[in-house]
């Protein structure tokens, strides 16, 4: 096994730095053997070989004070720290750092739920808290509050929000429904945002802005600081909840459906994060590919239509829910049902209409009331675990939906991949989640997946479909999508990065933001 060192750091200095860090966090919480204890820090699900992102070490800090002390050492030795809480962002890099030789700062042990306030409906958590943990806590204590979780429930409450992640209740936009951060800057300075900056304030988790510039967004999806606490609003359990699914027979129904959905979302008639699954997405959650297709090549359209009939689903399947007072919900449902069934062939399914063991309905119904689960991860069984996700966005129109679907379907099929996708409707935006599924043991498949991903980004840029997240490999080309006004966004990011982190120790290359003084590789 080759030796992995941070770029530009001599072996002796690296060993000296690790010795000092061991004194801070304890020897048991520094992992540095590539053959053994660093293996779980690799990402086996992306298109690059896992070892190309082998960290030089992983450090587990358990408190703000420990992180501050580690930052001091990192500044002294110029160590690049790649930080996360849960490290479960698979499809985007999982627990691996952007490049080999970085030190992973693993904050999973900072997993305390510091406060749950039922009166005002919020919580304050540390970076290691997962959706499962927070949900379990609320259930055990009997709080009448819901969480909003990502589809794989092992995700981190803070990490998902910082990556601009989404859920499925009315609180689906996780960063929007966050309130107040505690941030450590690169020099160890502690900052509390919004009302948290005011000693004695009782509204850190209640009023987002405080006074002056609103800086919370600056610490999301970037590398300007390390978030050590974050507040989230929690939805009071509503008196009534009505989940529904409507299926559509034809692929081209996505166009009129999006036109129907837009005013319903814009006017908040349907409040939650609505999902419209293509049959490929619905089927792959409950069947392995081998069970549906045993011939070479991609699954043809005709077979998808048969699969839809076999599973009693449509070519598109919309999941949504209504919340509130029982009478209001029933009144609203009459209008929603009338609108969503105006497309010929639409079929409505409510609670009890699907088979009791239908995994698709069951997990969506749970997600739309904030119960975390892992059913959707069935998707990764499609082709051996490898998957790259892309989430291009566009205005919520029928024309865009149909155009995006066909554009990306042609692309994926041409590279030899099934088009597996869903549409997510958030307030006024339509997000097309496209999944490139491949077998990571197959070198040819990995290379095709990588080529497909790069072409997808280029096509999305050409059409003006902005990408909202990035796998480690594609952070730079996705950052380049946003190159308007003579690259103003990149320039502003650069000024902020260099001002707040002059030694460039915090996650170099995250979201395409590199320190000016970075002389290492940029892969």
């Amino acid at each position, binding site marked *: 096994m080759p030796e992995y060192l941070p770029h530009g750091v001599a072996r002796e200095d690296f060993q000296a730095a690790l010795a000092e860090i061991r004194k801070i966090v304890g020897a048991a919480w520094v992992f540095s053997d590539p053959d053994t204890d660093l*293996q*779980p820090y690799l990402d086996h699900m992306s298109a690059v070989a896992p070892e190309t992102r082998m960290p030089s070490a992983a450090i587990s800090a358990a408190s703000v004070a420990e992180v501050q002390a580690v930052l001091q050492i990192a500044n002294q030795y110029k160590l690049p720290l790649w930080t996360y809480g849960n490290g479960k962002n698979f499809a985007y890099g999982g627990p691996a750092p952007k490049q080999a030789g970085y030190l992973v700062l693993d904050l999973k042990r900072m997993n305390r739920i*510091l406060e749950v306030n039922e009166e005002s409906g919020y919580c304050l958590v540390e970076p290691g808290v997962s959706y499962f943990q927070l949900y379990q*806590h609320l259930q055990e204590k009997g709080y009448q509050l819901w969480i909003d979780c990502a589809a794989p429930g092992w995700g981190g409450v803070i990490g998902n929000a910082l990556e601009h992640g989404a859920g499925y209740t009315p609180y689906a936009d996780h960063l929007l429904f966050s309130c107040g951060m505690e941030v450590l800057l690169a020099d160890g300075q502690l900052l509390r945002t919004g009302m948290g900056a005011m000693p004695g304030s009782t509204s850190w988790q209640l009023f987002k802005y405080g006074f002056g510039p609103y800086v919370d967004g600056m610490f999301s999806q970037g590398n300007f600081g390390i978030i050590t606490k974050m507040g989230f609003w929690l939805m009071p359990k509503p*008196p009534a909840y009505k989940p529904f699914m409507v299926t559509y027979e034809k692929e081209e129904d996505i166009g009129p459906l999006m036109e129907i959905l837009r005013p319903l979302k814009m006017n908040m008639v349907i409040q939650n994060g609505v999902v419209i699954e293509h049959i490929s997405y619905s089927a792959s959650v409950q069947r392995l590919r081998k069970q549906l297709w045993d011939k070479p090549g991609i699954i043809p359209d005709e077979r998808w239509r048969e699969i839809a009939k076999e599973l009693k689903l449509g070519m598109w399947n919309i999941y949504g829910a209504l919340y509130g007072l029982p009478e209001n919900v029933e009144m609203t449902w009459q209008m929603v049902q009338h609108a969503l069934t105006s497309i010929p062939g639409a079929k409505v399914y409510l609670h009890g209409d699907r088979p009791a063991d239908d995994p698709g309905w069951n997990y969506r119904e749970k997600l739309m009331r904030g*119960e975390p689960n892992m059913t959707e991860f069935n998707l990764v069984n499609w082709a051996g675990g490898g998957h790259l996700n892309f989430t291009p966005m566009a205005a919520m129109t029928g024309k865009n939906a149909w155009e995006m679907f066909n554009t990306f379907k042609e692309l994926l099929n041409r590279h030899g991949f099934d088009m597996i996708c869903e549409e997510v409707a958030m307030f006024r935006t339509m997000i097309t989640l496209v999944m490139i599924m491949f077998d990571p043991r197959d070198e040819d498949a990995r290379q095709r997946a990588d080529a497909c991903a790069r072409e997808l980004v280029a096509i999305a840029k050409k059409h003006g479909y902005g990408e909202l997240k990035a796998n480690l490999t594609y952070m730079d080309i996705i950052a380049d999508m946003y190159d308007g006004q003579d690259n103003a966004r990149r320039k502003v990011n650069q000024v902020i990065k260099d001002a707040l982190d002059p030694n460039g120790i915090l996650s170099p290359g995250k979201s395409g933001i590199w320190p000016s003084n970075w002389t290492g590789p940029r892969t």
Partner: protein
Amino acid sequence: MTRHTATLRLVAAALLGFAGSVPLAHSATEAPAGDIATSPVADATTPVGERSGQDVFVLFCRACHAPGPQHPGTTKLGYTKGQDKSVILNRQDLPAEYITQVVRNGLLGMPPVRPTDVTDEELTRLVEYIRTTPADKVPAEHPGGAYTYPPTLEQIIVFGIMPRLYTVILPAVAVLVLLTVVLVRRRRKR
């Protein structure tokens, strides 16, 4: 909305607010956030390293490996190993070393579990739990949700009775009383 309905809804909202405040037997705020650099004392989360095999299984394994098609690990193993080996519980045929290796290195759709997720000591307890615990002894996933709970008395009164009190219930009672009176009088006349 009529004035009458509006009044009813105000009453409903007030009653609901009252109902919502009743379960606050526990403290609404468990620990003050404090204004210090070190994290304040938190709730009763068991520290990493001290959790039982069951605690760790519930937090990290159950959602993929409990019985049923909604669990991705079970689905995949059912296809590759057969239904009788689809659930990784009570499996003394699986060597402890093998389970440990899969947990730490992952296997296809299962990513590795880091030592900060589950420590080596906890992993030893987890392996023992996996090898010796029947599936029906694993704590059930909480159903959660609103509609799975029976309605409270307040909700029955507010949403079931009050909205229909003047339009359905009282007129129906009046009609019944009237019918009863008419029938009784007729009998007396006979």
